[in-house]
């Protein structure tokens, strides 16, 4: 795995360079907004990456909470299976908001449940908590970029930096929840911290669907989606958007990889230090 890291890093750097070229030069200029529309190629992939990382954090937190009891794990697995079936049925039987495709909802439901079982398979016991910390921290980095690039686009297009619109406000709330999660992990030394943080993450992640679907459910100033929401986009713009998303996803995997390793090493060092402190001969009074 260690040998793979530099190869993957080089490939990611090449992909990011190509994505930057495609975003600044390759993609056509949008007619009404002009050059500033190109912020979209960094803003949207960063948002998608942050949502995906928060979703992984949510699943890892559930795994951590139910993993303490084998019976709860079995029940959670059955519930996860039932959610996958219910999502597929609901996607095709229930009326969906205009522009939302049933296949997109069904695929998302199956993908999330699949991810849950993958995490269970590859991140047993304490490793799932390490994964939760990692994805929350990297997710906050991407969410910060979303919250900064959004106003930089809004100022020339809307004439204002910020508006208390549902999409923008719920994104800010999401960011605040995950910042508090990181603060909790960083400054609390209680043995119950991972449990408290996992519970906070479960509640925090409930904001992700609200952020994502807010533009379908509420009347918002935020632009309607051009991908998967019934809108149209020039194929070259779509290509640039997807290339940038792929590049940022690869970059996020690289950063998570490093952060995960750092967390594992930190915990090992803390364990060694604690063990050493216990074994140290104490002078009797």
């Amino acid at each position, binding site marked *: 795995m260690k040998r793979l890291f530099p190869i993957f890093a080089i490939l990611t750097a090449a992909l990011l360079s190509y994505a*930057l070229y495609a*975003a*600044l030069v390759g993609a056509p200029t949008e007619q009404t907004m002009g*050059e*500033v529309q*190109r*912020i979209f190629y*960094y*803003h949207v992939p*960063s948002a998608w990456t942050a949502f995906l990382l928060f979703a992984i954090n949510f699943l890892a937190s559930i795994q951590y909470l139910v993993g303490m009891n084998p019976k709860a794990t079995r029940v959670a697995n059955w519930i996860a299976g039932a959610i996958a079936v219910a999502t597929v049925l609901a996607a095709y039987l229930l009326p969906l908001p205009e522009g939302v495709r049933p296949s997109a909802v069904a695929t998302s439901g199956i993908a999330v449940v699949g991810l849950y079982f993958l995490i269970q398979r590859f991140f047993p016991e304490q490793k799932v908590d390490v994964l939760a910390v990692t994805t929350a921290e990297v997710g906050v*980095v991407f969410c*910060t*970029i979303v919250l*900064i*690039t959004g106003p*930089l*686009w809004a*100022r*020339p297009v809307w004439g204002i930096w910020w508006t208390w619109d549902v999409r923008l406000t719920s994104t800010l709330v999401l960011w605040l929840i995950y910042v508090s999660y990181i603060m909790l992990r960083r400054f609390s030394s209680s043995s119950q911290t991972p449990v408290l943080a996992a519970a906070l993450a479960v509640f925090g992640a409930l904001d992700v669907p609200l952020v994502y679907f807010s533009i379908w459910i509420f009347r918002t100033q935020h632009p309607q989606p051009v991908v998967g929401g019934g809108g149209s986009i020039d194929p070259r713009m779509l290509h640039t958007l997807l290339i940038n998303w792929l590049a940022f996803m690869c*970059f996020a995997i690289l*950063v998570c990889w*490093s*952060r995960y390793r*750092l967390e594992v*090493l*930190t915990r090992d*060092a803390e364990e*060694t*230090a604690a063990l*050493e402190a216990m074994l140290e001969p104490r002078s009797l009074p």
Partner: protein
Amino acid sequence: MNFLYAAYAVTWIIHIVYLGTLLRRYTRLRDEMKRLNKTED
């Protein structure tokens, strides 16, 4: 154009700052490990 370049620059500044903090934490951890290994000897 200024807003476009500002958005791209801010994105990479945030990523680089975060990578810098990771690197600093790695360095601190390596020093701590060295210290622990020394006390073990």
